[in-house]
């Protein structure tokens, strides 16, 4: 009897924790959506800000965030994947590799504003990219790197050694084995990492603060060396600067809703692709 009661209590507690988590998530979405939906219109999505950001839309910020996120992934995915492959498939196991692993995990713990300062010092000043999409993407990319590396590593380690052996025993080289067998099998797991980092990157403000983001721009960026507006920074600007806080706050909620929807949409697409990949071979 006693054991059953304990079990019931245990399950109830677990259920309670899940419910509390979902409640948090649900209330955030409700809060943002109910306030943000009021300002959302076709004009809001397709036009630039007017009248010192109290009217018009936020299209340049949406476009800017898309560019920055895309840039960060273009930079971080191949680099991170290559690191993960090297660490899992090629490097001899030992002291040095452990140090590299620990360093990568530590990189994940670095506060994002540090990446911002680093980006300012290295990309903006040293390489002379200026405050630009390129600098911002690189700073965001470094932020995403540890996420991508560790999730890709997990995905690679989850693949049974016996499949690698099967491929090698057929006379495939290690590289052929990685390219044809290991990577395709690990793809769903790798995509998960990409999804996570997209969510993270799209919403980051600190790394682009000094490297890419502009307070206000007329029109769209012209090249990767242009400054951009970005949604997270735009929200920050609306809430802290300007002369019409009442109107700006409403727009900030609109921006938050768009940012949330964008991240959810990207995640959903990636999850869809992942399921399709998985489904093909189960």
């Amino acid at each position, binding site marked *: 009897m006693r054991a059953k009661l304990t079990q019931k209590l245990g399950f109830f507690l677990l259920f309670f924790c899940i419910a509390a988590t979902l409640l948090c998530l649900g209330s955030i979405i409700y809060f943002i959506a109910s306030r943000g939906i009021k300002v959302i219109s076709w004009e809001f999505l397709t036009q630039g800000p007017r009248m010192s950001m109290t009217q018009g839309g936020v299209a340049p910020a949406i476009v800017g965030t898309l560019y920055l996120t895309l840039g960060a992934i273009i930079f971080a995915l191949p680099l991170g994947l290559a690191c993960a492959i090297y660490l899992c498939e090629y490097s001899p196991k030992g002291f040095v590799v452990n140090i590299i692993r620990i360093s990568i995990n530590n990189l994940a713990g670095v506060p994002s504003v540090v990446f911002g300062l680093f980006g300012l010092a290295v990309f903006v000043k040293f390489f002379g990219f200026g405050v630009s999409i390129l600098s911002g993407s690189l700073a965001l990319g470094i932020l995403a790197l540890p996420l991508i590396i560790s999730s890709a590593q997990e995905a690679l380690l989850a693949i049974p050694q016996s*499949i690698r052996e*099967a491929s090698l*025993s*057929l*006379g495939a080289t290690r590289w052929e084995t990685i390219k*044809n*067998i290991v990577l395709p099998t690990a793809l769903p797991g790798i995509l998960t990492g990409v999804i996570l980092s997209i969510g993270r990157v799209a919403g980051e403000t600190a790394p682009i603060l000094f490297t890419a983001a502009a307070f206000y721009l007329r029109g769209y960026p012209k090249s990767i060396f242009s400054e951009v507006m970005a949604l997270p920074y735009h929200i920050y600007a609306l809430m802290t600067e300007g002369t019409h806080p009442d109107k700006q706050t409403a727009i900030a909620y609109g921006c938050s809703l768009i940012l949330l929807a964008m991240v959810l949409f990207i995640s959903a697409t990636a999850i869809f692709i992942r399921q399709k990949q998985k489904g093909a*071979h189960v």
Partner: protein
Amino acid sequence: MSNRIKVKAEDVNFFYAKTQALKDINLDILEKQVTAIIGPSGCGKSTFIRLLNRMDELVPNTSLTGKIFLDGEDILESKIDVVDIRKQVGMVFQKPNPFPKTIFENISYGIKVNGIRDKEFICQKVEESLKKAALWNEVRDRLCDSALKLSGGQQQRLCIARSLAVETQVILFDEPCASLDPISTAKIEELILELKKEYTIVIVTHNMQQAARVSDHTAFFLMGELIEVGKTQDIFTKPKDPRTEAYITGRFG
């Protein structure tokens, strides 16, 4: 029966770090015959056959002395390309390990990594390999299905077909029936008897009846040593070494 030696192990010693896993192994494996390797767990039988296609290289911290000849050529020499060895010496593993790809791709993979792109040839070879592995009739209508949908026994025959598709001459079976039911096991054994007409076969097995049923020669390993080797019939009816007798009569192991 041919008496040509296909694979020859000469004074082979093998170490995992400082632990000696194989001690002075000398063994001849005859062409187009089935050689069974029996012995209790941890006696070095799997370690030994993994040397024959250089799969030992995948494990770090090991060392190896001695010589292993394939058709008279020492495959342990550094100038030898392991990829070439593995094309000639295929391997079927303990658990079926098909690639998470389609049935067709599982077979064509080995042909493609060997640089053949001719589609017609590949299709022909896939069919031929599946027929040789006695799987063609079961999968001919669903070559584009995932290999993971097959049953365990079918998957194992697929893995056999996969190694037949490359220009294999020797096939190493590492306890191929350990995870299969008796009917699937019977099919694999039947297949082994069929395959020995064309291929040299080495099979590691825990199942003594299996060794007796399929093999021409049997080698008994114990604690990393080769205790006795001979015609299967002789090993099972009049073993020379008391340890062999003890093992095959089930007194230990």
